[in-house]
């Protein structure tokens, strides 16, 4: 049981990173970025690729490469795909994001093939904790995720740039009135979201395998997380993430792994019925 609990905790900390990227973009652009899962997948592939070049000893360089590459991709997608569609009907961006899913997934398949790859981690060994075996890799994943959650919260709520992002997400014209360049803020958000996807991809690659469809499941979990926590809310995403993790762990421990999906998405639907704005979401 404690083994389930710890593994569930580690996995949900990665899902929270995915959800944070998703919720940042949602709060500023009101678009559920369906392609975010593919950014996570791409992050993992870039990790595998650069690990093959620089070697496992330069692990942190690998992390940096993936983060920079995905942040750049985030900027690119915002500028060339999402920005021209900003005045179009809301469903349009959703469909464009779906198009990106197809493009990114098949591009990766054309380059790397369909094989399941593994992403080696530089941390060897494990510790015993409450009767469960916890590898150092999982310890690292959990600590890095928590650190990033804190950093992102501090950035959004305590810095000048974070204030700008929040201002644009509340009212674009209002922000423009007080001299905030909203295009720059939206670009920044996409870069941040891409960077988070890059880290999440590498971390996810350590606990699962790396394959072209690997982004789909975390994306769906992230949707469940941000709807339960409240769209656009960062503390909501963190609380929602551990909540979904707990539900899934319990359903796996009590029933079997096949039930995890039903309970997670059941919680999503239930949230939408009872409290559509989620736990911490703001009123429309």
């Amino acid at each position, binding site marked *: 049981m404690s083994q389930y609990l710890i593994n569930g905790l580690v996995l949900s900390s990665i899902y929270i990173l995915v959800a944070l990227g998703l919720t940042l973009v949602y709060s500023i652009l*009101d*678009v*559920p970025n369906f392609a975010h899962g593919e950014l996570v997948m791409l992050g993992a592939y870039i990790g595998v690729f650069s690990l093959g070049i620089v070697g496992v000893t330069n692990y942190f360089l690998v992390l940096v490469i993936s983060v920079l590459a995905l942040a750049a991709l985030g900027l690119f997608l915002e500028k060339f*795909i999402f920005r*021209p*569609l900003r005045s*179009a*009907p*809301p*469903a*349009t961006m*959703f*469909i*464009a994001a*779906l*198009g*990106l*899913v*197809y*493009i*990114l*997934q*098949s*591009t990766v*398949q*054309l380059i790397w093939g369909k094989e399941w790859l593994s992403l080696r981690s530089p941390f060897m060994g494990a510790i015993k904790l409450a009767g469960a075996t916890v590898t150092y890799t999982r310890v690292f994943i959990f600590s890095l995720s928590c650190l990033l959650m804190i950093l992102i919260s501090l950035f959004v709520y305590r810095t000048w740039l974070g204030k700008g992002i929040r201002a644009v997400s509340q009212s674009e014209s209002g922000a423009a009135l007080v001299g905030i360049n909203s295009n720059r803020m939206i670009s920044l958000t996409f870069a941040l979201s891409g960077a988070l996807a890059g880290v999440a991809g590498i971390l996810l690659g350590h606990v699962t395998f790396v394959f072209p469809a690997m982004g789909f499941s975390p994306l*769906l979990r992230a*949707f*469940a997380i941000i*709807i339960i926590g409240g769209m656009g809310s960062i503390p909501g995403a963190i609380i929602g993430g551990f909540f979904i993790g707990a539900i899934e762990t319990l359903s796996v421990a009590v029933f*079997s792994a*096949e*039930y995890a*999906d*039903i309970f997670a*998405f*059941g919680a*999503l*639907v239930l949230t*939408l*019925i009872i409290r*559509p704005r989620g736990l911490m979401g703001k009123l429309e």
Partner: protein
Amino acid sequence: MPGRFRVISYFGIILALYLIPVVVRIDYVINLLIFFLIWSMVALSFNLLFGYTGLLSIAQGGFFGIGAYAYALLVMKAGWPTWPAWVAGGIVSAVVSLPVSAITFKLKGHYFAICTLALSLIITGTLTIWRDLTNGSLGLVGVPPIRGIFLPWAGQVSFRSTFSFYPLTLTIFLLVLWVTYLLANSKVGRTFQAIRENEALSSSVGVNPNYHKAVCFFISAMISGLAGGLYASYIGFIHPMTSDVFIGLFALVCTVVGGTGTILGPVIGNLLLGTIPEILRIDPVVRNLIFGIVLIVVVRVAPKGIMGILKAKRQRAQGSRRV
């Protein structure tokens, strides 16, 4: 085009479609056409929701799977005759849509899309874990084909072979197309479009949006379910992936590319993106890449899809003639 000429040409096209298996004796081609017709029905049902009422539902794959499973289970476990079981499959799907629309009534925009996506995944999950009924992820093998009928001019017709199944599928497809056409041009259809354009305004003139949304969902789920039953009857093997999310997403792609809110748009989209790549034997990976690029280009350049481009061209031609 004069009215009479148009009617004659429509009948000519329909006759030609029925005569295809007489001329083309290649099993592969007819098989391809059957799938084209089945997926077109799903796309039509999606278009009814998204194109006419503005509901971006991703749950069509789920309803397709429910129809397929209901048909298979009623025939195999309850011993029903095939035709009533097929109709019942459509009705079961439609009845399942009622709680779905009750849940999603209040939701706006993206929340609606995400909620239907989650419900579609829940349907797949339920079909997987309900082993006593659905045999889990192993699926159901040996689903009996729909029974033959007696036609006065052709005698006893069985639907066991590809060539005889094609006219059946074509007939049902044309009926679905006809129903969609009638619906779109009826008062109800115009009410759907009023809700799509402005829900608050339409309710201010006495339209009940929730009731009409539920009606639209009901009809659309029934079409998907009937298509699913047909699929199960033709393939003879179903498993939880018969209700896969990607069925609903493919319907979305076809509809958006072909022309959202047009009668023939989803069919054209399916022909271009489903059938032609299959004929050309394009690698599925490359095909998906094309899907993505086409989707993004269409939403950027032609939001009304291929039908929209054709319409604009026709109007331009008419305009220049008048001058």
